C-alpha cells in the first residue's frame, strides 16, 4: 500500500508524457495529488498505531516512522495545494504567453518528478539513497526554477543547481565518512541504514563521526538554506513560478532539514551529548536569522523578502535542533509544519499579486486590499502570522522554542533571538505594509480574484494556521512527541 506513494507519481509522470490535452493534464495532476493525500492519511494512521511502517520488498528500503511521516504529510499537503493552485495559475500564464501551451506538460512532469524525489527522500531507510533522492530533488526542480526561461530565471536556475549540487556533494562526503566509521560495526547488508547506524551509534568511531557531521551539516545546510550557504535561495524562490516557490520553501527546505535531523540524532547518540552539534547548529542558526534580519530591513522585492524570511525560520529550527531538549525538538518539528503552511500560503497569494500587478517591486503596489479582497487580506494576515504574532501557529511554536532556549540556560542567546525576531518584524512592517494602504489618486488594476480554486486553498491554509495556533489535536501532539522521542531518544 505504502509503495503506491512512490508508484503513483511515477505513473502520473508517464501519463503526462503520453497526454497532450491541457485540461486532462490538470485533471490528472489533481487526481494524483488527492490519491497521494489519501495514502498519506492511511500511512499516518498506520504510524500512529504501530509507530513504524516497513515493507520487506526491494530489500526493505522503504521505511517510515513518525518523524518522516510528519515531513511527508507536509510534502503531500503542500503538493496538493500547489497542484490545485497551478491550474488557474498556469492557464493564466499560458493566456498571457508567459509560457507555451506545450510548456504545461513539461511543468507537470517536472513537478511530479520533484514530488516523487522528495517522497523518496523521506521514505527510505538507507542514507545513501536518501542522499541520492535529495540530490535528485535539485535536478528535477532546476528546470522548474528556470521555467520562465528568461535571463533572471536562467541565472537563478544555474546558481541553484551549481551551489546545491556542490553542497550536496559535500554531504555525500559526510555520509561516506559515516559509513567509514561504521565499518566493522555493521555487517554489509545494513550498511548506511539509518536504523542500524542509530542503534549502534554508541560503537561508531566518534572522531570520524564528528568530521562526518561537519560535512553533512554544510551539505544539507546548503539545501536547507542556512547562512552562509543560503545564497541560492532568494534567487531561486523569487524566480520560480509561485506554486514552485511554495513547494521549494515549504517542502524542499524541510526535507533537507530532515536529513540534518537524522544525522544529528546519530551523532548526538554517538557522542552522548548535544554540545558539539549544538554549537554548530546554534551558530549557523543565529547567523541565518541575523542575515535574514539584515536583508529584510531594506528589501524591495516581495518574493525575495519571503525567501529571506524562510532563511530566518530555517535558522530558528536549526537553533531549536541545536538546543536538543524534548521541548525544543517538539517546537522545531511543530515550527516546520507551521512554517511550511504559512509560507506556502504567502507564496501562493504573492502569486496572485504577481499576476494582478505583474511586478515584484513592492514600491509599485498599492491598494492591495481593494484589488484582491480575499488573497490580499490573507497575505496581510499571513505576514503577521509569519512574523510570529499571536494567535497564529508560528507564534506557538516559536514560543516553545524560545522557552526551551531559556530552559537550556542560553539566556543571552534567547534574548538575541527575541530581539532579532522583533527586528525581522520591523523589517516586514517598514518594507511591506505600504502595499495594503489605499492611495485614492493611484490607478490600480481592476479588482477581483482571478484564481478562484487557488484562493480557496489559501483560505483553507489560513484557517488551519489560525486554528492550530490555539488548538492542537491530541493525535498530532502524540505524533510530534513520538518523533521528538525518536530524535532525542539517544540522549534519554
Amino acid at each position, binding site marked *: 500500500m505504502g509503495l503506491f506513494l512512490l508508484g503513483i507519481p511515477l505513473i502520473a509522470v508517464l501519463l503526462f508524457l503520453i497526454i497532450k490535452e491541457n485540461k486532462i493534464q490538470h485533471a490528472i495532476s489533481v487526481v494524483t495529488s488527492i490519491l497521494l493525500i489519501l495514502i498519506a492519511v492511511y500511512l499516518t494512521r498506520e504510524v500512529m498505531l504501530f509507530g513504524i511502517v516497513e515493507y520487506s520488498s526491494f*530489500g526493505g528500503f522503504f521505511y517510515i516512522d513518525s518523524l518522516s511521516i510528519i515531513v511527508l504529510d507536509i510534502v503531500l499537503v503542500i503538493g496538493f495545494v500547489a497542484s490545485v493552485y497551478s491550474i488557474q495559475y498556469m492557464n493564466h500564464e499560458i493566456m498571457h504567453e508567459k509560457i507555451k501551451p506545450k510548456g504545461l506538460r513539461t511543468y507537470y512532469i517536472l513537478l511530479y518528478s520533484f514530488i516523487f524525489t522528495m517522497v523518496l527522500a523521506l521514505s527510505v531507510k*538507507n542514507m*545513501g*539513497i536518501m*542522499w*541520492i533522492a535529495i*540530490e*535528485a530533488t535539485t*535536478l528535477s526542480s*532546476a*528546470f522548474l526554477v*528556470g521555467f520562465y*526561461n*528568461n*535571463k*533572471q530565471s*536562467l*541565472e*537563478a*536556475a*544555474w*546558481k541553484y*543547481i*551549481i551551489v546545491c*549540487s*556542490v553542497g550536496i*556533494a*559535500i554531504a*555525500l*562526503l559526510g555520509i*561516506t565518512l559515516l*559509513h*567509514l*566509521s561504521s*565499518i566493522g560495526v555493521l555487517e*554489509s547488508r545494513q*550498511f*548506511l541504514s539509518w536504523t542500524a547506524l542509530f542503534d549502534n551509534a554508541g560503537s561508531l*568511531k566518534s*572522531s*570520524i563521526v*564528528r*568530521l562526518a557531521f561537519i560535512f553533512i551539516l554544510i551539505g544539507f545546510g546548503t539545501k536547507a538554506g542556512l547562512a552562509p550557504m543560503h545564497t541560492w535561495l*532568494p*534567487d531561486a524562490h*523569487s*524566480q520560480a513560478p509561485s506554486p514552485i516557490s511554495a513547494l521549494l520553501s515549504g517542502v524542499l527546505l524541510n526535507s533537507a532539514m530532515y536529513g540534518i535531523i537524522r544525522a544529528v540524532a546519530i551523532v548526538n547518540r554517538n557522542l552522548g551529548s548535544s554540545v558539539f552539534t549544538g554549537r554548530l547548529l546554534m551558530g549557523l542558526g543565529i547567523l541565518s536569522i541575523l542575515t535574514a534580519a539584515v*536583508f529584510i530591513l531594506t*528589501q*524591495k522585492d516581495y518574493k*525575495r523578502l519571503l525567501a529571506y524570511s524562510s532563511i530566518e525560520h530555517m535558522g530558528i529550527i536549526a537553533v531549536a535542533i541545536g538546543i536538543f531538549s524534548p521541548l525544543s525538538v517538539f517546537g522545531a518539528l511543530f515550527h516546520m509544519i507551521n512554517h511550511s503552511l504559512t509560507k506556502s500560503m504567502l507564496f501562493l497569494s504573492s502569486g496572485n499579486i504577481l499576476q494582478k500587478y505583474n511586478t515584484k517591486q513592492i514600491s509599485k503596489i498599492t491598494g492591495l486590499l481593494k484589488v484582491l479582497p480575499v488573497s490580499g487580506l490573507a497575505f496581510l494576515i499571513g505576514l503577521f502570522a509569519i512574523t510570529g504574532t499571536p494567535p497564529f501557529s508560528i507564534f506557538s511554536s516559536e514560543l516553545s522554542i524560545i522557552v526551551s532556549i531559556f530552559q537550556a540556560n542560553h539566556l543571552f542567546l534567547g534574548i538575541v533571538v527575541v530581539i532579532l525576531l522583533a527586528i525581522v518584524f520591523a523589517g516586514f512592517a517598514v518594507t511591506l505594509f505600504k502595499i495594503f494602504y489605499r492611495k485614492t489618486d493611484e490607478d490600480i488594476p481592476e479588482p477581483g480574484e482571478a484564481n478562484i480554486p487557488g484562493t480557496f486553498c489559501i483560505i483553507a491554509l489560513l484557517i488551519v494556521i489560525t486554528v492550530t495556533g490555539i488548538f492542537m489535536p491530541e493525535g498530532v501532539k502524540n505524533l510530534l512527541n513520538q518523533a521528538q522521542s525518536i530524535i532525542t531518544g539517544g540522549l534519554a
Partner: protein
Amino acid sequence: MSDFSNTLSTLILLSAVLLMACKRTKSYIKSFRLQSFLIALAAGVMGTGNMLKDGQFELIVVCLITIILKVILIPNILIKTEAKVEHKVEKDFILNIPILVIICCVLIVFIYASISNIEGLNEGSVNLQMVNSISIILIGLLFMISRKKAIGQIIGFLVIENGLFVTAMFVTNGMPFVVDMGILIDLLTAVIIMGVMVFKINDKFDSINIDKLRNLKG
C-alpha cells in the same frame, strides 16, 4: 596492493592539481579525462582484487561504467558543447596559475594537518588516501571558484564527484552497490542538465562567462 592504490590516489590528486594548472577549456577537459581514467584503472585493479578474494564483481561494473561515462561520454559532451558555444577564446581564470597551484599545496597541507589528529583516520594508508581524496574535493571546489566559464564549473563539479568516488572506493572499499549506481546516474543527469543550461545561457547571454550572470543581487 595497498601501496599501489596509494600511488594511484596520489596520482589522481596530482592530476587534480594539473587540472588546476590548465589554462584552456580543451586542456582541462583533457586532464579531467586523464583523472577519470586513473580512477577507472584504480577501480578495475581493486575490483579484480576483490573478485579474486571473494567474488565481488561490483567494483568491476563500476569501473566499466566509469570508463563509459567519465572517460568517454561526458568529456565528449563537454567538448561538443564547448565547440558549439565558444565564439572567442578568452581568459578564464581570475588568479594566475602559479598562485592557484600554491593555494592547492597549502590546502593539501592544511587538510593533512586537520585529518591527521583524528584517530581512525590517522593511521597509514587510510590517512594518505583520506587526505588525497578530501584534497581532490576541495581542489575541485577551488577550481569552480577560480574559473569564469560555465564549462569550467561543470568540470569542477565533476572533479568533486571524482573525489567523492575516490573516497568511497579507497577508504571504504566501495559504497553499497545501489548507492554507487545511484550516484553515477545522478551525476550523469546533473551533467546533462548543466550542459543544456549552458546552451540556454549561451543563447540568452551570448556568452558562457558566468560573471555575466549578475542580475540577481541583494
